[in-house]
């Protein structure tokens, strides 16, 4: 189904057309070489989605509950996972026990068919940046079966101290406000901070220092190096009225134009959304704590109360399989409700 020549020539499989044709609009250039195109797909909270990217073309499949998708088909050279927005300390109606749902998310991670070699936490670890909230998170995440967990802060993690405690705990080897990069099996990962020094009336912000660092960080990499960027607030403008975007993300992305494969993983909006533009695939993850409304569908982006028996269908994890040589990145979102 994925990762073969036939699939490359057919950007959207029949199955994808049938299941998501009503929300996917495609406009592909048939140049036969780099197959750069534009394709957009969105999936609101509660929908599991599988996206496979090949040379800039995204294939997307809706995962219904009970769908017998053969995960072995997307098994790659290595896998990593993303969790986001744990909000430890939150105890309001939208989810009075966020530690319990985090534990369920961890169980989900530990049950993945291909163990994640590392996990990315894309911010809002805590609700109020309190030491005991960070402690509870750390205690819970000890049970994740993986080699390492990488973090970037959300705005809830840097309250009152400009992120000092966050960096002390999770960012000792980072630059500036906590940004960094690392290599893993030939893939270049970049963790960015866009929740600090925000300006009145603005969106998320990277700032000049971080942008200068990013430009330098990727300058000497080969164009064929796959790039994965992760940050809390989306690096594309999802819905500016609710602050769901980053003011200077276009400049950051301009430094990544030369690369054949760029994947951007974000949190913050507590729902799955995806977009592909040229060489860049954007993806936001579900929260492990509570859902937020779809853009503009409520008076504010605050925590959304859903019926108790629905909560676990709007929380979840993301796992990513990377297939070397095919520029293939398979992103799978799974809710806590799924088997």
């Amino acid at each position, binding site marked *: 189904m994925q990762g073969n020549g036939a699939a490359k020539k057919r950007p959207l499989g029949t199955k994808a057309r049938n299941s998501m044709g009503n929300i996917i609009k495609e406009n592909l250039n048939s140049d036969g070489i780099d197959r750069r195109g534009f394709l957009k797909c969105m999936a609101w909270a509660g929908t599991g989605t599988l996206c496979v990217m090949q040379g800039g073309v995204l294939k997307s499949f809706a995962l219904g509950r009970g769908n017998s998708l053969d995960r072995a088909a997307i098994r790659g050279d290595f896998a990593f996972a993303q969790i986001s927005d744990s909000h430890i300390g939150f105890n*309001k109606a939208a989810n009075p026990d966020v530690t319990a749902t985090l534990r369920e998310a961890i169980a989900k991670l530990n049950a993945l068919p291909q163990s994640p070699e590392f996990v990315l936490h894309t911010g809002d670890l805590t609700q109020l*940046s309190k030491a005991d909230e960070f402690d509870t998170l750390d205690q819970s995440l000890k049970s994740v079966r993986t080699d390492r967990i990488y973090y970037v802060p959300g*705005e*809830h993690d840097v*309250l009152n101290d400009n992120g000092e405690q966050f960096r002390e705990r999770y960012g000792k080897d980072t630059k500036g406000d906590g940004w960094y990069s690392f290599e893993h099996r030939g893939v270049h990962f970049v963790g960015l901070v866009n929740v600090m020094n*925000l300006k*009145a*009336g603005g969106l998320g912000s990277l700032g000049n220092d971080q942008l200068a660092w990013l430009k330098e960080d990727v300058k000497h990499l080969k164009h064929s190096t796959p790039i994965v960027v992760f940050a809390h607030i989306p690096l594309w403008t999802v819905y500016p009225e609710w602050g769901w975007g980053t003011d200077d993300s276009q400049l950051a992305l301009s430094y990544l134009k030369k690369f054949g494969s760029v994947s951007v993983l974000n949190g913050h909006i507590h729902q799955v959304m995806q977009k592909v533009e040229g060489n860049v695939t954007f993806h936001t993850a579900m929260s492990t704590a509570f859902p937020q409304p779809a853009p503009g569908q409520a*008076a504010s982006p605050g925590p959304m109360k859903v019926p108790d028996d629905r909560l676990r269908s709007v929380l979840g994890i993301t796992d990513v399989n990377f297939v070397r040589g095919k520029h293939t990145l398979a992103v799978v979102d799974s809710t806590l409700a799924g088997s």
Partner: protein
Amino acid sequence: MKPYIRNVVVCAVLLGVVASSAMIHGVSIARAAENKNAAVTAVTVTVDNFSFTPKEITVVAGTTITWVNHDDVPHTVVSTDKKFKSKALDTDDQFSFTFTDSGTYAYFCSVHPMMTGKVIVQ
């Protein structure tokens, strides 16, 4: 989360605390200082659904404004020119600042910067 009830309460508080206040297009003008007996003037601004209400408020010098957060998420009240700055306010937390000098004070929530407000001190 009942914004209607909250707004009614807010209006009641404003009416109760501020003598002869007028609400025009969300702009509240407090004229409490006209009452010479009012040595201290107090006004409340609420935070509901990621916005300050009223968004713009005019008070006389000496007025203390108290911001109360009614949301399920933390917000801050930060002056854009660093005249005042609250800690993160959790649900029902409040922050007060007394405006002694006349002028225009723009402020925002540093956690959600699209939330902006203005205090005009006469």
